[in-house]
């Protein structure tokens, strides 16, 4: 599904290249559940952002769903991204001015779904995550776990093939974290969603099918579970 070849990401600081990712290559197949681990500054988030097309690598080749992403124009990339990828953030990043319902609905608006279609899809999602009763609340009225649930619902609403999660449980207590991880496993197994998550927790990493350890912008080890 996804192939990164000789990817580098660096910042020029007073003439010196400061590498965040250094000549990294990685293949991920459809249906995998990959956990990316590593110490702070090892390049986990940068890698995830590049995979998620929120950021561009400085060098290297990036293929996604059979397309050469590094050759695509902004607009095409955005279209590809919208169709295939959902994003979950550590800090949830819900839009404070929108209700739960509207937060989940927003991606559909950007993908030009019709109003009636949107209604059905959002209702379905609310039902699936058992948050129907909270649909008219604003993010500030929810607990962290509930907010993250909404964040995931929002990421999944447009039925992405790939779910990217940047420390999804980082701000949650362990019980809430476990629930989210169970949800991920279920999504992976039952719905066949490919998941790539960045995590600090060994325990959470083990929910996945593969663990990749990063150090100084390179893959230090990769372990199939």
């Amino acid at each position: 599904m996804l192939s990164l070849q000789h990817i580098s990401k660096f910042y020029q600081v007073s003439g010196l290249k400061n590498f965040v990712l250094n000549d990294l290559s990685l293949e991920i197949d459809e249906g995998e559940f990959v956990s990316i681990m590593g110490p702070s500054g090892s390049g986990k988030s940068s890698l995830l952002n590049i995979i998620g097309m929120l950021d561009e690598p400085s060098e290297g080749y990036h293929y996604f769903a059979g397309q050469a992403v590094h050759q695509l124009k902004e607009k095409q990339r955005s279209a590809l991204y919208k169709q295939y990828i959902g994003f979950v953030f550590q800090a949830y990043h819900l839009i404070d001015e929108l209700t739960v319902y509207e937060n989940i609905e927003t991606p559909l608006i950007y993908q030009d779904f019709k109003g009636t279609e949107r209604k059905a899809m959002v209702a379905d999602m609310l039902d699936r995550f058992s948050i129907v009763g909270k649909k008219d609340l604003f993010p500030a009225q929810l607990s962290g776990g509930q907010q993250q649930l909404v964040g995931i619902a929002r990421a999944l609403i447009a039925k992405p093939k790939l779910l990217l999660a940047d420390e999804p449980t980082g701000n949650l207590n362990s019980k809430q974290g476990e629930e989210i991880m169970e949800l991920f496993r279920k999504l992976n197994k039952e719905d066949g969603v490919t998941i790539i998550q960045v995590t600090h927790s060994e325990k959470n990493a083990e929910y996945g099918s593969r663990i990749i350890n990063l150090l100084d912008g390179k893959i230090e080890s990769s372990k199939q579970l």
Partner: protein
Amino acid sequence: MIKNYIKIAWRNIWKNKIFSAINIVGLSVGMAACIVIMLFVFYEKSFDSMHSKNIYRLNEVQKFEGMNASQKVALSMFPMGPTLQAEFPEIKNFTRIRWQQKFQITYQLKKIFSPQVFFVDSTFLRMFDFKLIRGDRATALLKPHSVLLTQETAKRIFGNEDPMGKTITHYGNDTTSYAVTGILADVPKNSQLQFDGLFSFNTVFNPRMFTNWGGNWLNTYLELAPGTDIKALEKKFPAYQKKYMGPGGVKAYELFLLSLKDVHANSADIGLDYINFQKFDQKLTNLFALIALIVLVIACINFINLSTARSAERAKEVGVRKSIGAQRFQLAIQFLGETVLLSLIALIFAIVLVSIALPYINNLSQRDLSLPIMNNVGLLGLVFLAAVFIGILSGIYPAVFLSSFQPVKVLKGSVETGRNKGSLRNVLVVGQFASAIILMIATIFVIKQLRFMQMRDPGFTREQVVTVPLNMVTTAQYKVLKQELLNSSLVQGVTASQDVLGSHLDQTGIEFKLGDSPLRQLTSTLLVVDHDYLNLYKIKLAMGRNFSSEKSALSREFIINEALAKELLKDHKGKPMSSLLGQRFGFDSTGVIIGIAKDFNFNSLHYKIETLFLFNQEAWGFNNISVKINGARAKEAISFIQSVWAKQLPEIPFEYQFLDDHFAEVYRVDSQVSAVVSILAVLIIIISCLGLFGLASYSAEKRIKEIGVRKVLGASVQNIVVLLSSHFIKLVVIANVIAWPVAFYAMNKWLQGFAYRINIDWWVFATAGIISIIIAFVTVSFQSVKAATANPVKSLRSE
């Protein structure tokens, strides 16, 4: 999608109350100012638009021997109309207008004074499209002794009677009767010609008029063939003048044409323009429009500044939306939507503001402005579109700026959004305050000049002087009246004259001969007065003697002003002024100069003092009586005059005006300008300060952590206030530096329009500068002090 945008926009507006309030208040005030000025501009443009023919007014430039400067006048001569039409085929029609003010009309027992009637040629209604309700346009004014009355006047005279065919009488020097041949619709207020009745001019024709070249006592309007080349036609006038008036006519007069539309708005430099109703210089209208636009732009700048300043708040939203699939232009449209919504809300407030303000505006402008928004769909649409446009205009930069954020960066919180774009904000704030300061300076000078004109000693006293028109009152009647009035202690003096000071006075040709030198023909302004005129008005004599009540049978006596004395001595260098006394002067060989009066401003202070002579001649009749009353008992005095009048002249209505009020009329346009400029200046200052207030609060908010750290390190409240305020004060100082030269240039130019003007004092600039800095400091301090006194523990608490 649209619904979604509107919803979010509404929530954002509601959530950021200060931001929204500042913008809505600023925009609505700016829009209201623009709408009012727009209504005014439309009203001005509508002047005389009811006429369809290609009509021009004939004007003269008079260059008479003996006048200080040549002058443009609206007047023309009686024989000009017909001869011009005969000479030039492109002139299809002409009509002359001779006005009569406070015109007395009698019908049976009913007597009224009509404020203004016109004597016109029968072609008047063929050229002008004034509505005739009854009667025949083509023939109504053909016959002598015909009159057309406006509906209102007909009602005043006849009540419910049918006026058609009835006869009205005008009593006066020559009593005349007129038959009503038609009823006119009331004249629209946006017509330069205002009249209550049209009288057939041929009723009062006499043979002398037809050869009276040189007598400028009426207005002539010409209808030209469509597409006539005005410049080419004007070029042919000198030959025409030479043919009919001889070479002297070419030397003394230059004829020019002014299109009907320009008569109202483009004739500020034309004098003796008596019937040009509410004449108002287009340049001033344009100036108002420009300043109103500046008010609006300044409100838009507030929006741009505040939006970019608080961009940090929106940054996360931009990042999230982009990460869930939003494209840049979708976000830009969302932000634009918010601005447009804000702008439309402001429009609603603006319309409310305008409806509240209109009565005051109408009182100030003397116009009938109305807001026909509800029944004029076109205008409503225009205003709506303008509001949308304003929303887009002020929202476009923030939208482009905000939508450019990179999600990776803003979601990490790594960029200092809002601060890096500070330079544009600084420029805009400087621009706002520079405009505010320029207008502040302008306001001070305009008000100073106005006060100067009102307070300056004009060389005569105008306090507690009441003028009463003396239409159709004979000199004998006047004398009795005068005696009666002087019997009371309420009246301190009574005199009479042909014209009231402060109006343009008539000019006339005169002769002068000094000793053996040749006779000189020249033109000067004439004021026919009663013998005690100088006393009542406290006009000082430079030399010679005053008129006396004892008339010398042999000679006609004249008093000239210093300006005329200088003119008369032009060819006799070295001779003292006193050598003029006793010299031959006036209309014929019987005249002598008996005195020289100190110069006084018989005209408005826009003009230099022209040459003038006073002539004491009861036989010519007086048009105005001046009564100096006891100021402490003014009300009593007025009713006393009225009672004497009613007893002496029961058949003539009594009207009066304080000379002070008359001069207020003379300076009305100046006071209107001063009022408009100062109102707009205040608005600009308020809106600029609103913006500064908003910026200061955001900047304080953004630096809250820094302030907390500084306080923990021992900074005092003053330190923090200075830290937060100094930046803004710097901007205002820069604004002053820019504003001063611009204001100096503008004021210098404006003051050129006054012959008597104030100096451009440096302290006005300094005052405006200090005031602007104080206002800015106070505005900013609200936020600075709040931030500086906040508990640092709160702001430093880790999230």
